[in-house]
């Protein structure tokens, strides 16, 4: 996103420089903003050609003139679409969601992953955003587990065991980045199927393929493997980096996953992060049952014990004590090594809660004539108290909560839905009444 926005600004600069004298007044504001804005940005001609696609931030208007794309509204429009899509899916209010997920991320490290159409290479981009994704995933699904599988040379290999800590996963992934040979969808599916079959029944089994290649070199009949995965209720999703492949589409349709293809780097990130919030649980998959969980306490300061995960001596303050067998574990959530109890902390549960009761999407309001409201400055965002009227007097789009009728600016809209998960307007009403 930075590259796109920066490119737009960079292009503007030479234009304003040459036209400065002619329409001095009009441009004054803009110029000031640029020169005073966030230090010195490199001019378009100063930047390297290869890693900055400044032309992508331009579009032609009706008369053939080049215009920088208004990235802010564009980004917001994209976000709105996503939000509406998501809320439409869960329109029936109380949709059951799979909060306890067992996800394998399968990363394609075949020859195709070394292609350079993403900079610097597909593989690097995939790794970079896989890291972002894993962090985001654990942020949104504290009760879930992730493992990583790589495909190369026609075989697949489990990089990390399925586990609940982002750090170890990321570390393992970054150390293993080299690509060669073919990729085999079937081998990966077989491998993952073998591991996911042992997962307890309340867990939601998922596989996410980050697929660079355009074909799959399989040892046998992949249709059988797909049928097997369908039978074990493994939800397979694929994000392709190049083009739509029939077999991937078929796999996703059969197993109830989603199949998307990335247009570019930012789109790839967007698609990947769409997999972070828990998917709605499919009725037949979700058998309602009670799960026994332990809420371990942080050990006392003076207690020294051997942790069960690393077999190292630790002081109690660094770990948690399993309430059933009193063994020391380093991090949550996890499964107790000794007694097999699922160990979580209450904040984890609370953080998963908002998926079940999401904030309603806000309605879009565009005040066409802000000046008619009388006073200058007009309305203010309820969240950040900033005026809706843009300094460059472009469209002053904003949103309104349908419940409390408070208005919010676009940034706050995103913040409320993506991070806060509570509407400040509604919350303050409740507290005051």
């Amino acid at each position, binding site marked *: 996103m930075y590259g796109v926005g920066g490119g737009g600004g960079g292009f503007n600069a030479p234009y304003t420089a040459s036209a400065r004298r002619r329409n001095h007044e009009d441009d004054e504001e803009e110029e000031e903003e640029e020169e005073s804005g966030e230090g010195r940005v490199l001019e378009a001609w100063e930047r390297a050609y290869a890693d900055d696609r400044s032309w992508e931030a331009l579009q032609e208007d009706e008369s053939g003139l080049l215009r920088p794309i208004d990235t802010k509204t564009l980004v917001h429009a994209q976000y709105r679409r996503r939000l509406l899509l998501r809320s439409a899916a869960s329109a029936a209010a109380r949709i059951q969601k799979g909060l306890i997920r067992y996800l394998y991320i399968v990363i394609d490290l075949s020859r195709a992953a070394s292609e350079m159409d993403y900079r610097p290479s597909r593989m690097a981009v995939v790794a970079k955003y896989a890291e972002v994704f894993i962090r985001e995933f654990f942020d949104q699904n504290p009760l879930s587990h992730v493992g990583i599988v790589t495909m190369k040379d026609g075989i697949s290999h489990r990089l990390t065991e399925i586990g609940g800590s982002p750090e170890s996963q990321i570390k393992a992934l970054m150390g293993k980045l080299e690509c060669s040979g073919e990729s085999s969808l079937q081998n990966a599916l077989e491998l993952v199927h073998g591991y996911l079959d042992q997962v307890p029944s309340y867990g939601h089994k998922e596989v996410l393929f980050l697929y660079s290649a*355009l*074909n799959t070199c*399989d040892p046998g009949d992949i249709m059988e493997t797909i049928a097997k995965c369908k039978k074990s209720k493994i939800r397979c999703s694929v994000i392709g980096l190049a083009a*739509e492949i029939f077999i991937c589409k078929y796999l996703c349709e059969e197993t109830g996953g989603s199949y998307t293809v990335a247009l570019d780097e930012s789109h790839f990130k967007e698609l990947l992060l769409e997999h972070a919030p828990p998917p709605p649980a499919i009725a037949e998959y979700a058998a309602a049952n009670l799960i026994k969980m332990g809420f371990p306490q942080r050990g006392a300061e003076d207690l020294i014990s051997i942790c069960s995960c690393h077999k190292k001596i630790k002081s109690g303050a660094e770990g948690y004590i399993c309430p059933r067998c009193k063994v020391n574990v380093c991090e949550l959530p996890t499964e107790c090594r000794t007694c097999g109890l699922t160990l979580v902390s209450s904040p984890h549960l609370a953080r998963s809660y908002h998926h079940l009761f999401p904030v309603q999407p806000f309605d879009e309001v565009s005040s066409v004539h802000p000046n008619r409201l009388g006073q200058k400055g007009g309305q203010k965002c309820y969240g950040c108290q900033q005026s809706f009227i843009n300094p460059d007097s472009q469209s002053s789009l904003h949103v309104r909560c349908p419940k409390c009728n408070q208005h919010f600016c676009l940034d706050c809209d995103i913040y409320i839905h993506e991070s806060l998960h509570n509407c400040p307007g509604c919350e303050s009403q409740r507290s005051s009444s």
Partner: protein
Amino acid sequence: MEKTLAELRLLFAHLPAAASRSLLALGLSSRKNLCVHPQASAAAARDSVDTACRRLTASWVRDRAASDPDSTPLCDFFESFDRAAAAGDLASYMPPGVYTLADLRALGRDRGICPYFLARQMVKYANVVVYSYQYLIDPKVASIVSREMQKECVVVFDEAHNIDNVCIEALSVSIRKQTLEGAERNLRRISQEIDRFKATDANRLRAEYNRLVDGLAQRGNLPISDAWLANPALPEDILKEAVPGNIRRAEHFLAVLRRLVRFLDGRLETENVENEMPVAFVASIHSQAGIDQKMLRFCYDRLHSLMLTLEITDTDEFMHIQTICDFATLIGTYTRGFSIIIEPYDERMPDIRDPVIQLSCHDASLAIQPVFERFQTVVITSGTLSPIDLYPRLLNFNPVISRSFTMSLTRDCICPMVLTRGSDQLPVSTKFDMRSDPGVVRNYGRLLLEMASAVPDGIVCFFVSYSYMDGIVNSWNEMGILQDIMQHKLVFIETPDVVETTLALDNYRKACDCGRGAIFFSVARGKVAEGIDFDRHYGRLVIMFGVPFQYTLSRILLARLEYLRETFQIKEGDFLTFDALRQAAQCVGRVIRSKADYGMMIFADKRYSRHDKRSKLPGWILSHLHDAHLNLSTDMALHIAREFLRRMAQPYDKTGSGGNKTLLTEEDLQNMAQDAMEM
């Protein structure tokens, strides 16, 4: 055909129940495709199925069976058909609905009735009949099958871009050495039969003679199972008079045929290529073999009568003499629009002697004319009729309405490109002087390799001819390009052998299905280019290597070009380009079959960027061919392909939004109707 009927069934489902309940639609095909008799249908070739059927169903066989039921086998399916036809309740066997060939076969098996004859008979009552062009255009078949069609019928020629070629083929005959040898054999057999009949049943021959003296047309009152291929000449050109006296007796007729065969044999001995008009040819037959034009004209009818008299059922054996008689009747009947070309060897293989006499028709309008005259409404339609104004000239008619429709697409789901240069910026072409240049071959190979690495699932490649395909694939193999391609996708090749090609196609589809990816090498004007769809993932990209011009040194083509220039004032170059471009359009059109589908088309030849070539492509391709995609090199094409594939992989709104709405609601339709009313 099956596809059309399947679509028709979908359409019927949308009709109100009352309307669809009274409609009957069926497909009609040869016995080969419809026979359900366990032994007869086992035969491999079409002719042998026909023969096997005749052996079981010919009227004299059934007569004999009536007297001697044990030794003569009959077809139970036909017998029950015959009983039903006699009782007049055929319709009860076939309630209204849509019948594909498979449905007909299933029906025949279930009810124990012959599907072929049932379909033939039900054609009279059906509302929609789907069959191949030949049944209407080829006079040999049309006068039997389509005789019952009424003037008010609407005739639709679908996929009619090649209709002129079908018309020409219907009236062309070629005779080779084998044909003449076979004809000699046939004649010997016929003379034996005559001798046998003379000894046992001389009355039959005398009865035939008397009938011929009376000038009775022997067809018209024949039982359906005896109907054989009819006269090769067009109906109104057949003389309605008595057979000339000197061929009325069977022996005399045989002698005439023998002389004719010997004459043709003598002409085949030639060392040079000869090109003659029918008039001169008939004159030389007259002077050398003593057969005049009138006798030639009656050859066909006389032979047919003789075969019936001799009760010959194995008609496939007699194809050779049949061909000779077709030839004789055609040259006896027509003086214009034909020419006779005798070639001692194939141009392309001058070492192998393979003499052939070709009677080739140059005028497509001859065969189609009776159709225009007989039916009130004739519609000619295809996705690749372009330029559309050339067809009326070729077929010699005045179109009442001639309209070219654009495609309404929800998104830009086709991406045609003209690639003129390789990645080294050298031009690529299959022009004769360039095609064997290793640089061009390598550039084509690199193009395919790059595309194979960027396009998922299936790629189809079309080459200009089998020999060119063999050559270039060989060179790619030597250069190692083929091995590189095989790393990305499997390679399948079309061959002239149908079975082999079908197998290759099956495996190609399998490879596309399971995600391995595949490339199919095929030939423009081949079977695959005409009839096989590569929709959805079976064809994401089609590459047309070169411009598929006809083999321009072929005598037949030269003669036809000359005729077209003299008669219809169509320039040679125009016709050749038109013909090549319609083939190219036909090839690339295989890749997209619906709005939800998407595909790319690459025209890889520098000649496509010239305006005279490009402008002859059909409108729906041209409208998507942007100027920016006209003069590409391999790397540019690769970039465009990648972008296009990514864009197409995004989910899209089926109803369309904004200007390009493609799915109309009922409301839209009402609005449109209102607008039309106001206008």
